[in-house]
């Protein structure tokens, strides 16, 4: 497993150029593959989303305040960090995207309602159905394209209004 420096567990990206009057979607993107993380981050930023990336499910849970040692980030109370969408790769070492999905859906907080999108390079119907049955909003085939993210945004915006 890669080990980055202790200080940079995840990136927080904020695109000032695309700040609209209404709320921007804040997306937490989880993927163990560095190239895929860069790509999904760019796709989301170009689609006017605020993006936080995590390199594995554990880091993602920690960011959401669901870490093992109940590591509550002080600023979690701040609206800025509220996540509107979680997009995660399915196949990750350690905890899979599916397990992450289940953990999020088990929550009693606002997190339960946060849409979780699963990505995978493999098109396996039983896998897709399993994810959808456990509450995944959508399943997306990798590699992601701009049109996929645009469709996703439309879908989510419609759900929110």
């Amino acid at each position: 497993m890669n080990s980055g420096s202790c200080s940079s567990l995840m990136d927080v990206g904020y695109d000032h150029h695309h700040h609209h009057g209404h709320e921007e979607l804040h997306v937490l993107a989880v993927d163990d593959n560095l190239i895929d993380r860069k790509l999904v981050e760019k796709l989301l930023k170009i689609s006017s989303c605020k993006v936080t990336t995590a390199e594995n499910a554990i880091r993602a849970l920690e960011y959401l305040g669901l870490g093992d040692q109940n590591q509550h980030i002080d600023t979690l109370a701040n609206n800025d960090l509220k996540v509107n969408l979680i997009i995660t790769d399915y196949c990750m070492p350690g905890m899979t995207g599916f397990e992450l999905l289940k953990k999020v859906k088990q929550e009693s907080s606002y997190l339960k309602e946060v849409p979780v999108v699963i990505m995978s390079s493999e098109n396996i119907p039983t896998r897709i159905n399993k994810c959808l049955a456990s509450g995944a909003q959508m399943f997306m085939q990798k590699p992601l394209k701009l049109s996929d993210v645009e469709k996703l945004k439309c879908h989510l915006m419609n759900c929110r209004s």
Partner: protein
Amino acid sequence: MELVQMQKSLQDYTKSLFLEGVLDSQFLQLQQLQDESNPDFVSQVVTLFFQDSDRILNDLSLSLDQQVVDFKKVDPHVHQLKGSSSSIGAQRVKNACVVFRTFCEQQNVEGCHRCLQQVKQEYYLVKNRLETLFKLEQQIVASGGVIPAMELGF
């Protein structure tokens, strides 16, 4: 060389990479994500891909050279390389990884060795081609020109 000539050379070169199957449409997706605010996006991502892949191929060589090959180590590496090559549009590398994984599943050491050679070959090819492509782009930019948009009708 005139700017127009350089731009034509770049287009022809890029087109040939698609026709040879070295790159697929996912590479065009990457190019679509590049803009004035991030003019080096493609080369940044591709550079990351090179660094990551060099490391993975090295690890794979080491793993396959062990007395007893641990396929639980080998397969995730190939999966990783398959994923990143697919994400940047390096079609032939991705396809070679797909074959590699089937030999991993079969725990076929000989087959895996052959696959690793194949993957390396395809990887060095795409690396070489993309480095050339970026050089052509740099020459155009250095001459004050813009990179022509890729024509999709071929």
